[in-house]
């Protein structure tokens, strides 16, 4: 967890789907830079020329195709799936060993050497990004690295570098401003929404589109940073721990009082304690 609040200087993607031609240069560039193996596909796994069927341990980004008709007009739409590099990543918050890190540059990176492979990150990610090495006996998680190694050196990510039209890369604040500029400049062309500005508490990938997001196959996501959902419970942990301990001790003390009283009386009477009472002694000694 970064614990930061200002993300305007983080490097971020602005992906303008009205400009994406579906050329898939980004998809190949990603495999090339990350040296990911090709997947064995057959025909197309979805509408248009979509392939492979999904992001996976071998595929960090993918162009989703939509090919349909809307009131007589053809719609042939493309959008780039990748890690959203959330400002406050759910993947990072749930990881028991802190294997995910929101870097100061922006990319959310994964430290495989820490990962124990519990796959909670996969459950937690609202965008279904982290994938697992199902092919291996001792699998690790795989996902878009945001090309952190390039970004650190002042380069743009491989996909952004390759993209001829749709991807801009720069400080998140500037990207959002640019997105809003485009919307106001061409209200006819864009849906008046900057996706990723608030989604999941704000992401490092920002989308513009002409078509409704649900129509493109975007799943609904909350506008709140996901870690806050679990944190609201987890922050109570110490309190509860002490609380429960305290109450139970109190109850114990109270519940055992009678016995102490009886014991006292018996001693007064000077009767020799039975084995049973003897053991009660042990009890009695505890609270001291």
């Amino acid at each position, binding site marked *: 967890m970064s614990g930061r609040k200002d993300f305007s200087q983080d490097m971020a993607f602005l992906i303008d789907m009205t400009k994406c031609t579906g050329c898939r240069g980004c998809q190949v560039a990603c495999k090339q830079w990350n040296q990911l193996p090709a997947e064995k596909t057959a025909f197309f796994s979805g509408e248009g020329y979509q392939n492979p069927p999904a992001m996976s341990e071998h595929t960090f980004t993918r162009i989703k195709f939509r090919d349909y008709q809307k009131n007589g007009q053809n719609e042939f739409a493309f959008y780039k799936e990748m890690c959203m590099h959330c400002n406050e990543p759910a993947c990072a918050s749930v990881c028991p060993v802190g294997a995910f890190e929101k870097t100061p540059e922006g990319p959310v990176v994964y430290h495989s050497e820490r990962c124990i492979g519990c796959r909670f990150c996969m459950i937690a990610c609202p965008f279904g990004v982290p994938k697992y090495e199902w092919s291996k006996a001792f699998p690790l998680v795989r996902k878009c690295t945001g090309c952190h190694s390039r970004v650190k050196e002042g380069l743009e990510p491989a996909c952004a570098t390759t993209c001829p039209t749709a991807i801009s890369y720069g400080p998140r604040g500037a990207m959002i401003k640019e997105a809003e500029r485009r919307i106001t400049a061409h209200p006819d062309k864009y849906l008046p929404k900057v996706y990723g500005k608030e989604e999941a508490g704000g992401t490092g990938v920002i989308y513009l589109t002409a078509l409704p997001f649900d129509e493109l196959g975007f799943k609904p996501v909350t506008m709140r940073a996901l870690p806050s959902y679990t944190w609201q419970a987890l922050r109570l942990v110490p309190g509860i*721990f002490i609380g429960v301990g305290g109450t139970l001790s109190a109850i114990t003390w109270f519940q055992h009082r009678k016995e102490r009283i009886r014991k006292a009386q018996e001693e007064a009477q000077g009767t020799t304690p039975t084995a049973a009472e003897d053991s009660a002694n*042990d009890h009695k000694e505890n609270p001291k």
Partner: protein
Amino acid sequence: MTPARVILNEIQGYHRFIKFLIFLVFLAAVGSAIRFIFGLGATTNLNDTYPWGLWISFDVVTAVPLAAGAFTIGVVAHVFHIRKLEPLVRPAIVTGFLGYSLVCVGLMLDLGQPHRGIYVLFPWNWNVHSPMFEVSMCVMAYTTVLFLEFLHPVSERFGWHIPLRLLRNLQLPFAILAAMISTLHQSTLGTFFLIAVDKLHPLWYNPLLPLQFWLSAIFTGLAIVILEASLVHRYMGQPDESDLLATLTRIIPWVMGVYMLVKLYALLVLAEGPFFDRPVLTTLFIAEVVVGLLLPFWMFLQHRIRADKAMQLRAAGLVIFGLVLNRFNVSMFGMILPGQEIYAPNFLESMVTVGIIAAHILFFVLIAKYFPVFEHHPETVDYTIPDRFRKIEGAQPETKAASHGG
């Protein structure tokens, strides 16, 4: 005769049910081996859409509350000092200990990097924002506590009286500690799913999930104790404890009541619909609430039923069913998004889980066979004489009975 021979002879003497259990456990062992050789992908139906399957939903999310008996009964007996219930404590502790140990086993199978499991302990890895971190810590801590508590009958068996004395004195603090730790992880198992905001269906998703998990763990823990005692009585010739259990049956409905209020409040006030948009989930929900909650609740309210052994058992059974279904609804069914292909555990996964359950019963029986688990009046044991370990009359027959068992 070599020790091996001894063991073999011993095993030959077992009841065929036990042998069957051993067989199941063996299968599971083989299954686990296969999993490690060929990997999760090849051997399970898990995939990127279903990173968590049967092993998490049952072996962890469900098994943990099922093993809650140990701490609940501990609290009731020691903290609330209802001493007559103490006989129920030890068996519960053994079950708890086995339960948690097997949870760990389940986790090890499910982890991609089991050998790194302990990384969670390394301070430089700590992530207090992670429910998983918290649960792992608790489970490890609690398993240790249970282990220590379990040493009790063990040292009794071998007459290590000093540890015995020590343990005896720690009994109460342990009971409290157990309750503290359990409260945390039982509830945090619920916190797991708070992150699944847009995945878990509104019927189950709400901010009070942790509280509900904790409460349901408590009354189910007690229900388990009932189930266990009754079965033990029925199959292992232990004396009938139903009068003791009746006490529990008076406690359970109270907790259930609170639970139901919380659940109701959460649904009506905190959760945002649509609730009944998906028939299958609706059905599952109704099954969970009506059969697994309202019905046993009503039953426990009836004096007649509380008094009746058989009915006690049935009601407890329903409670347990309710909890299992609830945990599956939350961790599996409720997480299936519309239009997603459905996950069903494959043979190997199921085999392993069955094996784990079998192991639980098996070890319980065996432990009961060789250790004084059903020590009816522990305080009647005299620990004062240091030189030799001796029991007074009366305890004997039970231990024998135990050995006949199975």
